[in-house]
Each structure stands twice: as structure tokens, then as C-alpha cells.
């Protein structure tokens, strides 16, 4: 399976924040959801993918090419949506299109028109009057109009109402149908990922915790609940992190089968949400410090 994005032992320091020995691969033809808390390094990673930042150490390749020699070629093949407005606010969408269109050799006016109509975007209205949802739609329309093979999105669903979030996910679903495209997007709204992501990449404090297939997470991870009497030093070590209360404990494991053998029927084993995984991993990391 071909890798579209490859990070090899990337190191990047930005003030207090550090991306440490970060390796990552993103597979062609799939949707990869990129999750992590605030300040985990999601935006930094996306900026590194877009060459808005350069790594201090390590290498990054996109489509198997490096930025030093193939910058324009790589960017021709990427469509991007950022969390903030990156268009000139005093221009209209029509004028903005006039600026962006000539940059791409593969610009397809028909597709752009299609999305402008589908998203009901006003072409003659100033960008500054656009709502957050309209802004994201406008960015998406531009990102999809030049036959990009890789779509990079930084928090595209944040600040959007549920109806539009679903609409956006439907559009993404639709463009994935030809199996030639790859989507990599960061989010902290993990329910979005249940619907669409094939792979989940989890990052915490600048460290790559895992990249797994969505169903694999379900198979391996579990939330375990039981009485405090089940816990001792040894069993506690089986978990990523444990939360205790008077009523009992709740813990996360990344080895569901093993836990089932240890506890048998004495503990309750449930399917975790991505939020559970994020929460307990964070807690677990603090534990070990």
C-alpha cells in the first residue's frame, strides 16, 4: 500500500512545544482522522505537511517527493482547508477565485461552479461578511476544484453546526468514492471520525501514540469497569490508566483479550469512545511522569 505522507523521525521545536522523534505514514486512498487534545501538536504537524514549517531534524516526504526539490509539484496536488479564514477579507469569492485559479494547472471551473451552487455560496459578497460555516464551505470548494489527490484539513468541523458538519462529511464521503484521493484531517470532535475515518492517528504532547485502523481500535481497546477489590499493583499495571471512585474503578486497556482472561466475568468490558482513549492516554502519560 502506497504512503502519501511520510514523516521520518521528525523533530521540531516551537517555543515550549516540541515534536519529538515523530514518525508517521498516511496511506493512499483512505481517510485518516488526526486526533489529540489542544496543544498536542496537530496544527504543527499539518503546517509541516504543508511546508509552512520546516523540520529541525528528520525528513518529510509527500507523494514520495521532498519539498526542497519538488515544492510546486507537491502543492499542485494538495487541496487545503484551514481552521481560520485565509482569504483576503475585502475581496469577494469571485475575486478570490480569480487569484487562486491561475495557480493551479488542473483547475476545473465546472467543479468549482458545482460546489458554489451546492453550498449556496454568494460569489459577489465580501468574504468578511461570511459566517464560519460559509468560510469553510468556500475553502472546501476551492480545495476540491483542482483535482487534488491529497486533501489536508485542519479542524474543518470546529465551530460548525451539526447539519453542516454532516453535510461536510457527506461531501468527503462522496469524493472518496474514486479511491484515488486521500484525506488527512485533524479534529477534536471525535464523533465525526466514527462516520468517515478509515485510520485514526493519535498524537499527545508532540508524540505519536498510534495510527490504527478504526475497527482495530475497537478490537484492541476496551473500557473496563469493576469493583476496587479487583485492583492491586499488578493488575493496575495492565491498564493505560485507571480512574477510581468509591463505587469502583474504570480503566482503559489496549489489550482487550488479555484483560478478559485476567478478570473473566468479574469485570465489565465495554467499547471505548475515542474520547475515552484520549482521556485515559493523557492521564496515563501524566501518571508515568
Amino acid at each position: 500500500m502506497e504512503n502519501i505522507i511520510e514523516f521520518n523521525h521528525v523533530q521540531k521545536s516551537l517555543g515550549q512545544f516540541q515534536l519529538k522523534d515523530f514518525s508517521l505514514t498516511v496511506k493512499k486512498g483512505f481517510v485518516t482522522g488526526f486526533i489529540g487534545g489542544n496543544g498536542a501538536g496537530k496544527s504543527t504537524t499539518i503546517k509541516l505537511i504543508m511546508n509552512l514549517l520546516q523540520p529541525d531534524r528528520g525528513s518529510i516526504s509527500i507523494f514520495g517527493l521532498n519539498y526542497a526539490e519538488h515544492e510546486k509539484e507537491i502543492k499542485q496536488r494538495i487541496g487545503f482547508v484551514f481552521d481560520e479564514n485565509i482569504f483576503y477579507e475585502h475581496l469577494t469569492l469571485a475575486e478570490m477565485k480569480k487569484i487562486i485559479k491561475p495557480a493551479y494547472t488542473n483547475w476545473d471551473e465546472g467543479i468549482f461552479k458545482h460546489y458554489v451552487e451546492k453550498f449556496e455560496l454568494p460569489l459577489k459578497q465580501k468574504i468578511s461578511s461570511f459566517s464560519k460555516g460559509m468560510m469553510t464551505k468556500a475553502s472546501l470548494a476551492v480545495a476540491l476544484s483542482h483535482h487534488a489527490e491529497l486533501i489536508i484539513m485542519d479542524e474543518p468541523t470546529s465551530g460548525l453546526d451539526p447539519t453542516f458538519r454532516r453535510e461536510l462529511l457527506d461531501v468527503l464521503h462522496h469524493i472518496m468514492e474514486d479511491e484515488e484521493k486521500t484525506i488527512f484531517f485533524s479534529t477534536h470532535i471525535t464523533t465525526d471520525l466514527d462516520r468517515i475515518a478509515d485510520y485514526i492517528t493519535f498524537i499527545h504532547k508532540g508524540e505519536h501514540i498510534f495510527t490504527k485502523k478504526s475497527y482495530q481500535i475497537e478490537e484492541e481497546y476496551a473500557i473496563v469497569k469493576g469493583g476496587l477489590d479487583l485492583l492491586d499493583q499488578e493488575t493496575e499495571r495492565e491498564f493505560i490508566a485507571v480512574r477510581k471512585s468509591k463505587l469502583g474503578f474504570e480503566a482503559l486497556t489496549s489489550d482487550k483479550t488479555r484483560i478478559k482472561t485476567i478478570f473473566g466475568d468479574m469485570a465489565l468490558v465495554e467499547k471505548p469512545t475515542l474520547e475515552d482513549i484520549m482521556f485515559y492516554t493523557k492521564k496515563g502519560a501524566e501518571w508515568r511522569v
Partner: protein
Amino acid sequence: MYNLIRKDLILLKKPSMMLIPALLLYLYFDFSYIWSGFLFSIVIIMSLFSYDEKSSINTLLNSLPYTRKEIVSSKYIGALLFTLIIVFTIFIGNFLFHRELTAWRDILFIVGLVMGVTSLLLPFSYQFKSKYLMTGILVLFGVYMLVINTFIKNLNDIIREFVQTMLVTQNVQFYLIVTFSIMILYACSWLLSIHIYRKKAF
């Protein structure tokens, strides 16, 4: 790169509806066209710079298939182009309103002055952001005053004389030296800006 200059032309479309008539008005009322030309050119060059200065716009331009070198170079080539447009407007305006042909020396002086000042403004703005230009200019003014008061008391006269000589002299060699120096300065400034911009994080 050509597309980046085209982008600046689109951004200039609205402001130029005001700038060009204003310049023509200045010419009609016979203000110094050398200073008008200089002022209008610098205003255009620096407004275009400040449009692109926001970090969100840098994110856009750097995510589009352009290299950082092209983004900086488009500003330097654009600056020359917009100065030539202003000079051309002055030439036409002078001809229409006063029936006179603008002296080539004056034209060269405007272009040279704009290039010289742009050479200083752009790298400074890439390094510190253009909003600190005012502070920079005040500091420079302070240094200038200090120099006049303590070291070279007749600096003002020297500069005035130099400008006068430049505008009347027939010495071709003198023109060549000045033109060449400004071109070198502009090229160095261009390279310096590329160097500064390449290291920026957005």
C-alpha cells in the same frame, strides 16, 4: 510568479480608482511631480505589502503552489512595475495638462529614489512587520539629527547639492555610477528579503 503580480493587480483595482485620479489632480495643480511620483509609488508598494503581511494570507500564499522565493520576488518585480505605471501616468498627465514632455532625468530620479527607498523598506518589513516602520523611521530620523548636530553639520546642504547636481549634470558617467549603485542595492535587498522570508514560520 506572474500570477502573484496579477494577484496584486486585482488587489489594487479598487484603491487605484482613488489613487490615479488623485495623482492626476496633483499633476493638474502642478505639485512637484517628482515627489508625487515617489510618494504614490511607495504608498502602492507598501499597501500591497501590508495586504499580504497577515499570517493567514501568508498561510494561503505558501499553501498554493508557489515557492517562498517567488512570493518575495513578485514584490520586487511588482514594485518596479507599479513605479513604471505611476511614472507613465505622470508622463501622460504632464503632457495633457501642461503640454510638456517630462525630462528623462526626472523620470530616472523618481525610479531611482523609489528603488533605493524600497530596498530599505522591504527587508525591514519582512523582518519586523511594516507596522514598526514608523518606529524605524523615527529612530533613523533621530540618528540623522544626531549626525547633523554633532558630526557632519552641513549634511543637509551636501544632500541638497547632490540632488541638484544629479538633476542638471550632463555627465553620463555620473548617471551610470548612480544607476548601477541603485541596481546593486536593489538586488542585494531582494536577496536579503528572500533570505529573511525563507526562515519565517507561519
